[in-house]
């Protein structure tokens, strides 16, 4: 299924200054999806640890937990036909509850949390569902226009079942007034496409007296069903 570029960010988004020198100027060259793009790496649960999906404790000292409002983030990974994508690796990373990343290039004044690393990963179940536990990240300032603040967000890296589905995106939180002001968000030219990057509170999935929940469904490209369903092993 060809990519719908009307719902994807342009390479060059002038208000997002980093893109000006990092955006190719030539048009992408279209090509048929070949076996190279129609197959992708496979990750298995045994390559992950038992706490990889739990950012509240996976970097915490014994007996401690990460600082911040406890959250469950969950949803389904789908393809464009609406089918769940099982067995897919999702990696996430985020700032801590004060908006600081555990990264040597992050110079924000807000403090690190010794009990929060900021990374997690999970493999979707047989229905394409995923879930991880984390804390609410805070907005943070970034050098762009002089006074830009990122809305609170979680970064997602998603593998599907073929390399053409590879996706990196960011999830935002409903009601954040910084979303509409963000040059990175606004690199996406379609308001409906932006709306689908905003996770919604999900009271049903809330754990009483423990964690609020947000739901974020992710849709990957394609697929060409006949090709996949008949795919011989290791074509």
């Amino acid at each position, binding site marked *: 299924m060809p990519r719908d570029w009307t719902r994807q960010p342009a390479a060059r988004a002038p208000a997002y200054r980093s893109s000006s020198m990092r955006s190719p100027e030539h048009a992408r060259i279209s090509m048929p999806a070949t076996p190279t793009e129609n197959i992708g790496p496979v990750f298995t649960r045994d390559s992950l640890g038992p706490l990889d999906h739990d950012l509240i404790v996976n970097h915490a000292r014994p007996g401690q937990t990460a600082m911040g409002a406890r959250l469950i983030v969950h949803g389904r990974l789908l393809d*464009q036909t609406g089918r769940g994508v099982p067995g897919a690796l999702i990696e996430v990373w985020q700032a801590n509850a004060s908006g600081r990343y555990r990264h040597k290039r992050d110079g924000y004044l807000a403090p690190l949390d010794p009990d929060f690393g*900021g990374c997690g990963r999970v493999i979707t179940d047989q229905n394409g569902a995923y879930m991880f536990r984390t804390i609410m990240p805070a907005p943070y300032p970034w050098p762009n226009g002089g006074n830009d603040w990122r809305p609170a967000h979680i970064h997602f890296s998603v593998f599907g079942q073929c390399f053409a589905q590879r996706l990196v995106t960011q999830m935002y939180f409903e009601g954040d007034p910084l979303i509409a002001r963000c040059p990175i968000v606004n690199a996406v030219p379609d308001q409906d496409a932006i709306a689908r990057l905003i996770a919604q509170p999900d009271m049903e999935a809330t754990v009483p007296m423990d964690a609020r929940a947000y739901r974020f469904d992710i849709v990957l490209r394609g697929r060409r069903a006949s090709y996949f369903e008949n795919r011989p092993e290791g074509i």
Partner: protein
Amino acid sequence: MSDDLHETASQTAGPYVHIGCMPNACGITGVFAEDLGAQMLQAETPGQRIAIEGVIFDGDGAPLTDAVVEIWQADEQGRYTTRSAAFSGWGRAAADAETGRWRFETIKPGAVPCPDGTVMVPHITVWIIARGINIGLHTRMYFPEDYDMQAHDPVLARVQPTGRLHTLIAEPGPDATYNFNIYLQGPKETVFFDV
């Protein structure tokens, strides 16, 4: 078709992509046992050992020191053996924080047969994410020694006019190392594909 869902919009990986994709390499240790894709070769991996390395340059000629590069390739026989313990075909590396140089130790892939009977010459998919890149950039690296076969490759045939084809061909270096510099803009701009 009208009932199809829309693909989720891409957003930049940002400057801190290493936290999620290769935390051990950026000093976050003790969370994940290992960074996925950091090592592609096993002792038993069949095939000719090669290394590929390069630097990604922006429009000012400055190296990208915050990029993450993934490669995806067939095995020595041109098969995608995703479940093989000996070789998965996928690797991931961070650009060096000072020089921007990234490097993979892998094997040379074989030619890949397509369902329509055509054959693709040996190639490695290279995929780049970084701050300032709103949607991952997808290109391919080809091998200089396969020059004669490349005229018949069904993907290379799409690169018209052919004046930019050379941007997809690695340069041979010593010790079976191939250099594949990537230029995001300018007269040497690398060919990127809409796959």
